[in-house]
């Protein structure tokens, strides 16, 4: 099984800083992490490696364009008591 995340302690070890310093980076929103429960935080390895390499996502320019197709949400899904007239 491929390992997908580090614990804050593993990151602290990798960066040679304290556990508290890692938590501070997370709480400041600097280091990407996910809170799994009130006491469990995980740092995705892929996100950590990008962060360590200094990766900053490029801010995209957004415009409005005719949709190639509508957002197909739930298409093909079997609805309870199927009522075809309700489907788009």
């Amino acid at each position, binding site marked *: *099984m*491929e390992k*997908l*995340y580090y614990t804050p302690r593993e990151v602290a070890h990798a960066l040679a800083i304290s556990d508290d310093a890692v938590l501070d980076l997370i709480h400041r929103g600097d280091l*990407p992490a*996910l809170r*799994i429960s009130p006491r469990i935080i*995980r740092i*995705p*390895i*892929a*996100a950590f*490696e*990008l*962060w360590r390499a200094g*990766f900053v*996502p*490029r*801010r*995209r*320019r*957004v*415009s*409005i*364009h*005719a*949709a*190639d197709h*509508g*957002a*197909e*949400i*739930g298409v093909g*899904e*079997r*609805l*309870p*008591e199927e*009522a075809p007239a*309700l*489907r788009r």
Partner: protein
Amino acid sequence: MITASTDELHAYLADLIETVERYGATVLPPNDAYEVYLGRDGTDLVVDLATRLPTGPRSRPVDLVLRERWRPIETGRMALAEYGYELRDHQLDYRRALHRHDVEHFVRSFDVAVHEHCEATMGHETCAHYAGEPVAGAIDGFFRLYREWLAGARPDCSALRCLG
């Protein structure tokens, strides 16, 4: 009800892409370019963002797709009318999805506006629709599904409440 102005939706899509990329997801075409689009479908605006989660070179892909339909409610503002956030893990062969669509139908049938899907083996449903908590937009949907993927195991669908 989640609402936004058109300008806010522009920033929302840019924020969403920054977030998923920060967490190592790859944005797939056509939104992998510098210029990205909100789709216009009649008077609705749609978000349709396909991403691939970071896996090893020998792993099968893990796709996380975020789709939304925003509908005008008053001049200059839109409401999040429908969403479909989908995780398909082809490595572990499971599917999770968080849905809001056909709301009148689901309210009439189950008295809920939103539902979820859970296939511990992709393509094999033991229940067509599960109860779910409303999702507060695509970033929230991304994190909920990313968290499931990060667990590194097939979901326990039996822990969810089957609606029918």
